[in-house]
């Protein structure tokens, strides 16, 4: 009987495990590559191109074929005119070849010198068309007896084309124009500022409210689980539903609930256009302050919608805390506020920091909320809304992509900070 020996060199086994792991990860990797990483790079590419939304339609060759003369006797001659044009005003089309069959009842007298004739089949090599080019190809034909007896319609055989359209996305035009326009435009800094303001206050607000709500529901009382479900619902409901509910709630016109309520209470005299007022000037005597109304309302919406997330995680963390330390503090005579300040809060710092950084980044990325509430009007245009505005409202894809690049760069900056500060064991 041989003595058992420990296996030497885990090489093959480890390799097999590695191969297995890679094969499990490969599908995910491919999907993420094609839908996240590739578009990310493509966005950089597009941002350096002068490209409009309309350029996405690939150009094609359009033709109008017509027999120009009436042929009434045998031997009468006339022109068939092919009016060929490039459907796009901007993009080029290369290597256009037109083929068409001329009816047998017409004999071909002469034709454009770019064409060749095989029987009744005409093949014309038209070369390249730049954007917007149109030209006429003339083929001279003579009528035969058969044509006089039963006139064929030359349109019965449609000319066919082969061509290589230029793809606006792949063309070699590059410029820095998108970026220079972006940085020189008057609203670049206001937009960036609004973005930061929205992100910082939205994040802080959601965290503070989440912390407050978690303190409330950390006690046990009747109806607690009902309230917990209620508190989570802003986060769970579709953004479009709650955003429109807010829009109607805050409406300044007749039928706006909040304005009507405030008027009924005598708080305000005339309706306030919450989502349409850029700023009101508050006069404190010594100094005046332009209070951004619409931006604040949008931030309140953000806080309302995302405090449940902070609430959820803070509550989970609080319920996992050991109670011993509180009992000890109780015996030592620590008051409830001291217990919160010196025991709970330090223990929550970890989750609060993680939540802050994640929420900060996600709030910065947020597009739908503001888009649905104000569409970016009244000083609420953030960078992300500006991407949409440039690319799809102004129809300048390149400019939109340039804004998206700025979004990404700012984000990368935040993400770096996040990874520098991230504690080893989060959540």
């Amino acid at each position, binding site marked *: 009987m041989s003595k058992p020996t420990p296996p030497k060199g885990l090489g093959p086994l480890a390799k097999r495990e590695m191969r297995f792991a890679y094969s499990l990860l490969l599908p995910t990797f491919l999907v993420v590559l094609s839908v996240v990483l590739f578009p990310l790079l493509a966005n950089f590419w597009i941002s350096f191109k002068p490209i409009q939304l309309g350029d996405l339609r690939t150009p094609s060759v359009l033709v109008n074929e017509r027999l120009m003369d009436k042929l009434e006797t045998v031997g009468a001659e006339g022109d068939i005119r092919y009016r060929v044009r490039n459907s796009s005003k901007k993009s080029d089309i290369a290597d256009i070849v037109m083929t068409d069959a001329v009816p047998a009842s017409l004999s071909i007298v002469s034709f454009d010198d770019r064409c060749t004739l095989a029987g009744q089949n005409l093949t014309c090599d038209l070369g390249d068309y730049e954007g917007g080019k149109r030209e006429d190809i003339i083929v001279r034909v003579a009528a035969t007896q058969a044509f006089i007896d039963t006139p064929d319609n030359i349109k019965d055989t449609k000319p066919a084309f082969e061509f290589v359209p230029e793809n606006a996305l792949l063309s070699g035009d590059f410029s820095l124009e998108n970026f220079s326009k972006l940085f020189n435009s008057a609203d670049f800094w206001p937009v960036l500022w609004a973005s930061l303001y929205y992100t910082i206050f939205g994040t802080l607000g959601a965290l503070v409210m989440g912390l407050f709500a978690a303190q409330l529901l950390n006690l046990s009382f009747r109806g607690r689980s009902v309230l917990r479900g209620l*508190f989570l619902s802003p986060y769970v409901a*579709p953004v479009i539903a709650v955003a429109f509910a807010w829009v*109607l709630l805050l409406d300044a016109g007749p039928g706006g609930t909040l304005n009507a309520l405030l008027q009924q209470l005598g708080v305000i005299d005339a309706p306030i256009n919450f989502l349409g007022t850029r700023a009101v000037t508050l006069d404190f005597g010594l100094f005046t302050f332009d209070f951004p109304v619409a931006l604040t309302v949008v931030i309140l919406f953000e806080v309302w919608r995302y405090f449940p*997330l902070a609430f959820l995680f803070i509550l989970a963390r609080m319920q996992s805390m050991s109670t011993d330390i509180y009992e000890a503090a109780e015996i030592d005579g620590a008051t409830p506020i001291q217990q919160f300040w010196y025991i709970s809060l330090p223990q929550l710092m970890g989750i609060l920091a993680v939540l802050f950084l994640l929420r900060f980044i996600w709030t910065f990325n947020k597009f739908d909320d503001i888009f649905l509430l104000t569409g970016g009007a009244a000083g609420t245009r953030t960078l992300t809304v500006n991407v949409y505005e440039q690319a799809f409202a102004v129809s300048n894809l390149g400019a939109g992509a340039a804004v998206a690049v700025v979004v990404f760069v700012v984000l990368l900056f935040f993400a770096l900070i996040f990874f520098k500060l991230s504690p080893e064991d989060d959540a």
Partner: protein
Amino acid sequence: MSRIGNIFILCLLSGAFWGAIYGVLVTLLALLISGFEFQPQVIAGTLAGIASAGVMTVRPAGERDRKTFFAAIGVFIAVLVIVSGFKPLGLGMGTYALGQIIFVVLLAWLVTTTVEMIGRGYGPSHEKRYNVEVVILRFLKSFGLVFFTIAVALPFFVMVMMSLKNQQFLLANPLDFSLDLSVGAATIFRSYIELFTEYNFGTFLLNSTMISIATVVLTLVFAVPGAYAVARLKFPGQDFLSRSILLIYMVPMIVLVIPLYAVFSQMGIRNTLWGLLFVYPATTIPVALYMLQGYFRGIPAELEEAGLMDGLGRMQVIMKITLPLALPALASVSLYIFMIAWNEFLFAFMFLDSVNLFTLSRGIAELNTSEVPRQHLMAGAVIATVPVLVLFLWFERFLVAGLTAGSVKG
């Protein structure tokens, strides 16, 4: 023992506060429900709250019984009615008489109960700092509960009520949410019926359901093997992967939208549900993977090793041991992905042009024009909200455990 200590003062203050706040809230509630133009009597409410709190807390903590409670309620009602000049809700007692009585009693009960809970066990004498803080924190908590409940519920309340009210009527009386039940269910739910019969909401609902379920299935198919690999297998780059998965989730969707729009347009798959089915799982796989790998790590490796020893292959181990054990996590991840896909707006809005392909989010966006009554817009919002909310609240316990165990997400 001095009669008037700091606790007594605090209780009077909270009585004043809650008398005013509940006064406003109950009056508004009466206004919304009845449609009568009630006016909150803030000063009367404040004074009544003080009086009632005084009656309640002037007695030592141990002697406050049922009789004290009813006396406090009685005093509240009396002061409120007299100070407001027999218009406790701002209108003469004759209008909506029975309703007014109910609301006034409700108001008195709310204020008294709250003050009783805030002061329970303490006062009225001077107490030490600990007890003062307890009373103050009770006050803050009662305030917080009322504040959060109203702030969270108000938009949903408005959403539901507006979907049931005729727009002309609401424009004339924006605060009148009273429902006339005598007109019949068909009239009350008119906007819902019209959405399904005239605005294709049946199709949208079907599209949303199909897309969401397909996204869940696809995501799991991709994420489960990946998560298992990251959690269990050793390979170069493992650490890097498990840390950087979440990084992918931080890529803003708006940055991806332009290239995807451009490429999908040229490939002719933009205005199709397939396009969405390509994008949605790709955006959810990283989170799902992150959440699942956290859970897989928590499953004892010994169980799987036992399976390996007994001659199962890795695939069989995953299918027969890991997945059954991870069922709660799979459920919560599925629910979560379903929620993301169901609520997704940006890509549906950018990609879909044909009405028969719309998801609910996209369909509701189409209702936001002046030609469509608001009633329909809000009915659409309710239709989109109810399924996901019901599903979520039903499985909430699962979801919360799964979400908080494995990861963090926004």
